[in-house]
């Protein structure tokens, strides 16, 4: 299942997408994020789903600002959460 966390507003599209079929609940991305944007939650959509990564409620509405430090205007872009994931379950739309 593809879970899109984030929003689109006047300035653009900002979504972190978690593929819950690929996510194995290893929590590496949660720990890799320097700003506490992610958390491990119970997969409410699938009874056999187990644990999955999600964006915390607090950050869902300001994800553009929360993730801004990892997305400098110029220079190399290294997203700790994406790099930490072994199954490529997490992606950013921007």
């Amino acid at each position, binding site marked *: 299942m593809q879970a899109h966390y984030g929003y*689109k507003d*006047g300035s653009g599209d900002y979504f972190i997408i978690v593929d819950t079929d690929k996510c194995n609940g290893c929590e590496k991305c949660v720990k890799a994020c320097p700003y506490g944007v992610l958390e491990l939650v119970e997969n409410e959509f699938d009874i056999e789903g187990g644990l999955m990564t999600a964006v915390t409620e607090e950050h869902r509405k300001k994800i553009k600002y929360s993730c801004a430090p990892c997305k400098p205007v110029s220079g190399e872009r290294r997203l700790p959460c994406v790099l930490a994931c072994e199954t490529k379950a997490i992606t950013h739309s921007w």
Partner: protein
Amino acid sequence: MSEESGEFWRWREYRHTQPSMDWHDAKIITGGVDIGSVGSKAVVMVDGELYAYSVMRTGGVSEETAIKVTNWALEGTGLKTENLHHVVGTGYGRVNVPFANKTITEIACHARGAHYIYGPTVRTVLDIGGQDCKAIRCDDKGKVMSFLMNDKCAAGTGRGLEVFADLIRIPIEEVGKVSLTVTEEPPPVSNTCVIFAKAESVALLRQGWPKERVAAAYHLAMVDRIIDLLTKVGIEKDFVITGGVAKNIGIVSRLERNLGIKPLEAKLDPILAGALGAALFAKALYEKQIGLR
């Protein structure tokens, strides 16, 4: 919005009991309470069939609203909250339903509720709520396969419509109909921000545009934003719309035209989808509890 503006944003609150039904011989009576940021809905189901419901505006204190909306749904039925075998809370204020046995995310509840309202062929659910817009893809059992929820930005939500209705001074329950009285569709207003779209609308009105033309422009902009979100999860038939804004014919008809897909027609009030799904989950959970599953 200030009450002095004439309250064009205010929609009618209501309740209903199915006259032909009786709960006295029921095995399982469940409740679903959907506390949204703008509207709250309570549903009572008897053995998985819709029995009674109520829809009202969410007040300043979610807990109070949860109690009020449920009591109103039960009004005249002879039932009390304690008689409900199992209650599930959902929506923005779900943690504030004091008598709920469990809370379940509104995404799952809407998918389930949409299946109840529209049938098992539903694969794509678009929920346009008061302060959010959700796109949900589900399978033949109503299980969620993909979802996207936008509750940060007012563009494409009911609040955006409320702001606009207030501006052109047409009651929100009619603004959609009015937007369809134009002979030709105008270009849409800026769809990027309700605040800016409102300013544009003011300018258009000053320019002499008739109200229905401005309404059409605003509805088109809203539809653009909604389609943008929908296409992120993809659309598969059958396609349905839930939430309060599903009753706005100006939005629905333009969605149909621009998507080239006809949404299924609702036999029940689409605003109840979340609460219905919650009540159905309550039934499944209760059955599991008492060993029926």
